[in-house]
């Protein structure tokens, strides 16, 4: 089968098609139109497609008839520093995007977990925001417009390139964090911010409970922080917790906010640390184990949720936002324990999203799992708009009979 598929694709798409390490035909289109063309062909033949970026976040291991990678869609098409917007293709590595933006004194206020070589598309499709979501919100808040290729080869655009826009339904909302089930994001318009004049990061170390209260005191004092994240390298250093606080703004404004933060966390001391190094450490740690999950937990219940996650999944890295909430865990866990945690969290009205795992676990547990009542039929119908024949391999649900 694979040989015939390869020949068919090669005849139609030329040298965009190669054979991947796993023997699968691998299509690497260089334009949005070429993505649509490849999808249209696959759809016509009923071929199942695995969509990949650079394979650094989600393992490129889903069974399929062909792999489609966005890695050659790697241009930052436009940066408009005066308007604070940019257009980039989905396959651009996140670090390259950041570099291109910094050259224009701008940045995208998203600090995703994982490798800096992750593609922008991977961050968008998984909706994986990092600690800066405390101030800047989830990934979707930074997306102004998208171009998406549907599984049957149509190109759908939504939004625009202005920072405020309510023309038409915002279809991009289902693609951001939709784990590839709603078409292939090929190009995106992003909302940027001007680089702040000053940017400081601090850490404090201690036990969970007192550190939690210290972090919550920063939030309660309404200190203008960009990050207030409680993290635990549980599997490495026993139970040592760290509070990571980042403050950005004007020089004198930052100084004043830091002084207030120091007061709020007393008797803990805020130890200055290198922003880049800590950011890289946190991003790497969140993908240290083979599995990464996030739980939509409110910050007020953080200690309880941490206990529940630890109890159910065992050792792992944990990060929890003390302003907006949201807990991320990375470690090793099989389908049974993940399902058990999902069930126990659901009892507390907390959704669990499987952000990253080997195929066998994704297939069994699903990124979203057992949807809440009424959500599944709606999701299925919306999905059918973007993938009518169901050829995009994206396990959103728990395997039936599991």
């Amino acid at each position: 089968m694979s040989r015939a598929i390869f020949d068919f694709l090669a005849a139609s798409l030329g040298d965009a098609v190669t054979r991947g390490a796993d023997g699968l035909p691998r299509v690497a289109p260089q334009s949005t139109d070429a993505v649509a063309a490849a999808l249209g062909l696959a759809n016509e033949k009923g071929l199942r497609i695995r969509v990949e970026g650079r394979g650094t976040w989600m393992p490129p291991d889903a069974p399929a008839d062909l792999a489609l990678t966005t890695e050659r869609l790697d241009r930052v098409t436009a940066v408009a520093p005066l308007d604070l917007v940019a257009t980039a293709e989905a396959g651009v590595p996140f670090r390259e995007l950041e570099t291109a933006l910094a050259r224009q004194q701008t940045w995208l206020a998203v600090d995703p977990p994982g490798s800096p070589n992750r593609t922008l598309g991977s961050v968008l499709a998984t909706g994986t925001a990092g600690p800066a979501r405390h101030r800047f919100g989830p990934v979707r808040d930074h997306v102004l417009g998208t171009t998406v290729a549907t599984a049957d080869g149509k190109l759908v655009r939504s939004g625009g390139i202005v920072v405020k826009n309510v023309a038409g339904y915002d279809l991009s909302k289902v693609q951001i964090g939709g784990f590839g089930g709603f078409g292939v994001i090929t190009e995106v318009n992003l909302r940027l911010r001007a680089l702040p004049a000053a940017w400081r990061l601090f850490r404090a170390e201690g036990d969970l409970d007192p550190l939690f209260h210290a972090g919550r005191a920063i939030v309660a004092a309404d200190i203008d922080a960009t990050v207030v994240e409680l993290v635990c390298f549980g599997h490495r250093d026993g139970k040592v917790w760290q509070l990571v606080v980042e403050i950005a703004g004007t020089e004198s404004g930052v100084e004043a906010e830091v002084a207030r933060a120091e007061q709020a966390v007393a008797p803990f001391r805020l130890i200055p640390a290198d922003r880049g190094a800590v950011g890289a450490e946190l991003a790497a740690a969140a993908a240290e184990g083979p599995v990464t999950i996030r739980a939509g937990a409110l910050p007020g219940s953080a200690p309880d949720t941490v206990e529940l996650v630890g109890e159910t999944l065992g050792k792992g890295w944990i990060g929890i936002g003390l302003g907006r909430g949201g807990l991320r865990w990375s470690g090793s866990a099989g389908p049974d324990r993940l399902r058990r945690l999902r069930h126990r969290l659901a009892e507390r009205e907390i959704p669990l999203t499987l952000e990253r795992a080997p195929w066998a676990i994704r297939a069994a547990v699903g990124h979203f799992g057992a949807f809440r009542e009424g959500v599944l039929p709606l999701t299925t119908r919306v999905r059918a708009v973007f993938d009518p024949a169901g050829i995009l391999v994206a396990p959103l649900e728990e395997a039936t009979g599991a």
Partner: protein
Amino acid sequence: VNPVGAPPDPAADPSLIGALQAIVGERWVKTRTAERRTYEADGLPTHASVPMVAVLPGSKSEVVSIVRLLHQRQVPWVARGAGTGLSGGALADGRSVLIPLTRLNRILAIDPADRRAVIEPGVVNARLSEAAAPLGLYYAPDPSSQTACTIGGNVAENAGGPHCLKYGVTTTHVVALEVVLADGTVTRLGSRQGDAWGPDLVGLFVGSEGMFGIALEITVRLEPIPAAVRTLLADFGSIRAATEAVGSIIGSGIVPAALELLDQACIRAVEASIYAAGYPTDAAAVLLVELDGSRAAVAAEAAVVEPLLTRFGARTIRSAETAEARAKLWQGRKKAFGAMGRIAPDLVVQDAVVPRSSLPAILDAIGEVGRRHGLTIANVFHAGDGNLHPNICYDQRDLPLRDRVARASREIMEACVAAGGSITGEHGVGADKVGYMSMIFDPTSLAAMCAVRRAFDPAERANPGKVVPIHSCREWGPGGRSGGRVEPALE
């Protein structure tokens, strides 16, 4: 939606009226012409349409019963908040049932620790902030109509407001919804934290202009009331200088809570009215800059912003920190639309967005459109995010004038789109801008929107005829065209 002066509506089916009365009681079913006429328009004077009947549910379960009844009877319906919308989005025609949700006005819960509120859709925007104030919290989105508009309406329109520059529009504040779909299914979307059991259907629902269902319960994030707020008012000799000052502030990395601009026509209208705020009438523009946060942060930001204003040509800068003094500076901005009532009996508040750097050129272009059609166009807008509100004053009774207003509106939209902008930043497409949608979206994208809408409402019964031109809805999937009738393509 019928244009103004449409023929009288057909009589409603008596058995339907009886069934609606059985759900909500006779008192809450409005069938008399005079009663129904009160719902013939929203805040946009150019569109009017009288509903077949208006039914006002008093509880969530009554809303669900009404929607189920209308589903069984295959009757289209339109949900409505306070009717302050500016796109004709909540108008129902003589074949449709109007469902005003203003009686569902309870604040169900406020959780100060996690800064969440759960409310019914008919809660008036400003009332939520009043209720949260004793807890040190407020609800950030603040449309100009906030003392009247409902949060359910805000959800439908993804409403904005001056302070959305820093805090984001409605969609960034809504974390969960309980909704009833057009077939009567009740579903909860999102979670109190904001993550979802599935894809971001809350994000998709917010801004769907009442075409995906009715929000029965809305869970929103609240923000802490800032310790300090400083409002600066700068006046400029040219509007270009004022817009350049806006760019320089944003470029400095500071995001003010609000950055609002009024042009000369608007300043003069305000100063000639009872809302006079002491704006200099010889100024080409006044710029309001609001900074908020801790005392120190506000002082630090003001120390950056004030020299920028001066450098870009501000003639004078007034600064206010007390609530009373700030209200005085804001008064002209907040009452600008009212002040324009002096100029002519009717007012179209347009809404469009351009990239911020295009503001000077687009304001010139709008001035040119006004001159060409002999119209007075006054601009008052959210300069920080390039969201324009050109106001056209006119007299509805003057038919040729009305036609000129319509042509000028279209030309303004065309100019904004040509500059890379959008046809609406916060008022929605509604009935008013359906015809403009093809300026910014290709047929495939419009068809995809229709198809997604049908995922929520396969029979297209909720708020029919709005947002996406009907002809665009016949081109998706295998269903396609069938004897001129729109077939749900996904069934």
